[in-house]
C-alpha cells in the first residue's frame, strides 16, 4: 500500500524524459523541508494518498503513462465537472444560510480578490527569469493567480475528512478568484506590448469582459451558491442524495479522468525546461504559503486558512486557458497547459493540499 506514492513518482518521472528530473526533485525537496511542519505534512500526505479519490487520480495517471486506451468521453467529463461545481456551490450556500453573513466572509472575499490580482506579478517575474518571453510569461502567470476548482474540491474533501471543513463562503471566494488574474495577465502582456515586444490580438474589450464575468464556471458556482443560500438547509435535504451523498463517489470518477488528462498533457509537453518544471512546483508552494499567511492574518478558522492556501496555490485550467487562447494567441498553450495541468495540478492534489493544511495547522497551534 505504501508503494503508491512511489508508483506515481515513477510514472510522472517517466514523462519528462529528457528533462532534468533531479532538478525538479531538488526544488520539491528543498521547499518541502522548509519549516517545521514537514512531519505533519508527511502524515497528511499519507492520509491523502489513502483517499479513494486520490487513488483514482493516480490510477488515471498510470493508465496514461502506460499508454492505455482508457478514455472517458469529453461529454461525461464536462458533465461531471458541472455536477461538482453545482454541488460545492449549493453546499457553500446552504452553509452560509445557516451561519449568516459574517465579517470574515467579506475579509476572505477581499483577500481572495487581492491574491488573484496580485499573485501573477511575482509569478511573471519568475517566469521571465526562467526564460519565457513576455507573452508566454504573462499568460502563464495568469494561470497561477487564478484557481483550480478540482483542487479546491479535493482539498475540501480531505479537510472535511480531518474535521477541518472550510467555511461555506470559501466557495464564493473560489468563484471570486477565478477571473481577476486574467485581467492581471492581460495588463502584464500589454505593458510588455507597449515596450514593443509582444502584440496582443485585437480582442474586443466586451468579448474579454464577458469571458471574465459571464464565464460559465463562475456563473454556475455563484448561481448554485445563491440557490443554496435561498433554499437553506431544510429544502436542501430533498436534493442532498445527489448533491451531498453522491459527491465523494462522483469525485472518484472525475479524478480518474483528471489523472488521465493531466498525465497526457505532460506526455505531450516538449517545451518544458527544467526551470519551468521547477517553477510549476515552486509557484504553488510559494503562492499556497502566501495564501495561508493571508488567511491566518485576517483571522479565518483553520480549515478556511488551509482552503485559502489551497486556492492560492492552485493553478487554473478552466477559465484562464480559454481566455488566453482568445486574447493572447501568441502565448503557447504548449507551455501553460503542461505547467498548470500537467505538473502543478497533480503536485497540489498529491502533496500541496497536505502541505498547506499542515502549514495552516501550525499557525493555528
Amino acid at each position: 500500500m505504501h508503494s503508491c506514492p512511489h508508483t506515481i513518482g515513477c510514472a510522472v518521472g517517466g514523462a519528462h524524459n529528457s528533462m532534468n528530473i533531479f532538478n525538479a526533485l531538488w526544488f520539491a525537496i528543498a521547499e518541502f523541508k522548509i519549516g517545521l511542519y514537514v512531519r505533519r505534512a508527511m502524515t497528511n500526505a499519507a492520509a491523502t494518498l489513502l483517499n479513494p479519490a486520490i487513488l483514482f487520480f493516480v490510477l488515471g495517471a498510470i493508465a496514461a503513462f502506460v499508454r492505455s486506451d482508457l478514455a472517458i468521453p469529453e461529454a461525461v467529463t464536462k458533465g461531471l465537472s458541472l455536477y461538482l461545481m453545482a454541488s460545492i456551490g449549493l453546499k457553500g450556500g446552504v452553509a452560509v444560510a445557516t451561519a449568516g453573513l459574517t465579517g470574515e466572509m467579506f475579509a476572505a472575499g477581499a483577500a481572495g480578490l487581492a491574491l488573484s490580482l496580485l499573485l501573477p506579478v511575482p509569478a511573471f517575474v519568475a517566469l521571465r527569469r526562467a526564460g519565457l518571453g513576455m507573452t508566454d510569461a504573462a499568460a502563464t502567470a495568469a494561470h497561477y493567480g487564478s484557481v483550480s476548482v478540482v483542487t479546491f474540491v479535493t482539498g475540501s474533501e480531505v479537510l472535511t475528512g480531518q474535521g477541518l471543513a472550510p467555511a461555506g463562503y470559501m466557495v464564493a471566494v473560489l468563484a471570486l478568484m477565478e477571473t481577476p488574474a486574467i485581467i492581471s495577465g492581460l495588463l502584464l502582456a500589454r505593458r510588455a506590448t507597449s515596450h514593443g515586444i509582444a502584440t496582443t490580438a485585437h480582442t474586443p474589450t466586451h468579448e474579454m469582459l464577458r469571458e471574465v464575468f459571464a464565464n460559465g464556471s463562475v456563473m454556475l458556482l455563484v448561481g448554485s451558491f445563491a440557490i443554496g443560500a435561498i433554499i437553506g438547509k431544510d429544502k436542501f435535504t430533498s436534493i442532498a442524495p445527489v448533491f451531498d451523498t453522491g459527491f465523494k463517489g462522483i469525485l472518484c470518477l472525475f479524478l480518474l479522468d483528471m489523472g488521465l488528462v493531466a498525465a497526457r498533457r505532460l506526455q505531450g509537453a516538449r517545451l518544458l525546461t527544467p526551470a519551468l518544471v521547477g517553477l510549476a512546483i515552486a509557484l504553488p508552494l510559494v503562492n499556497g504559503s502566501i495564501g495561508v499567511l493571508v488567511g491566518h492574518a485576517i483571522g479565518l478558522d483553520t480549515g478556511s486558512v488551509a482552503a485559502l492556501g489551497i486556492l492560492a496555490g492552485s493553478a487554473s485550467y478552466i477559465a484562464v486557458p480559454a481566455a488566453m487562447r482568445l486574447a493572447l494567441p501568441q502565448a503557447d498553450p504548449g507551455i501553460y497547459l503542461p505547467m498548470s495541468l500537467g505538473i502543478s495540478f497533480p503536485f497540489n492534489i498529491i502533496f500541496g493540499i497536505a502541505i498547506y493544511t499542515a502549514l495552516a495547522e501550525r499557525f493555528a497551534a
Partner: protein
Amino acid sequence: MSTARRIEILVDRPLLRRVTAAADTAGVTNYALLPTLGGRDGADAWSQDQLTGATDRILFTTVLAADKADALVAALTPLLDSHDLLLTISTVEVVRGGRF
C-alpha cells in the same frame, strides 16, 4: 447545377464567436460547424477539450457564391493573421443552386 465555393477554417473554440461575427459582417448567413476529436498542429497535439475549452477546435464550413467568398476572406483576414489560422477554398458543384 452551378458552381460555388466551399470555405473551411479550423478554429479554436475560444475564437469561434469572432469567426461567426466576421461571417455576419460579410453577409454570410449559411454555415455549419463540425466537431473535431483532436489532431496535431506542428509540435502541439490538441484534442477535443470540453473541460478547459482551450485546445478544442471546430471546423467552420460554408458553401457560398464566389463574391461572398471573397467578402468572407476579407472579413477574416485580420483574424487569420493574429491567430494564425488556415483557411482553405475549393470549388464545388451545387445542385439546386438557385440560391446562389
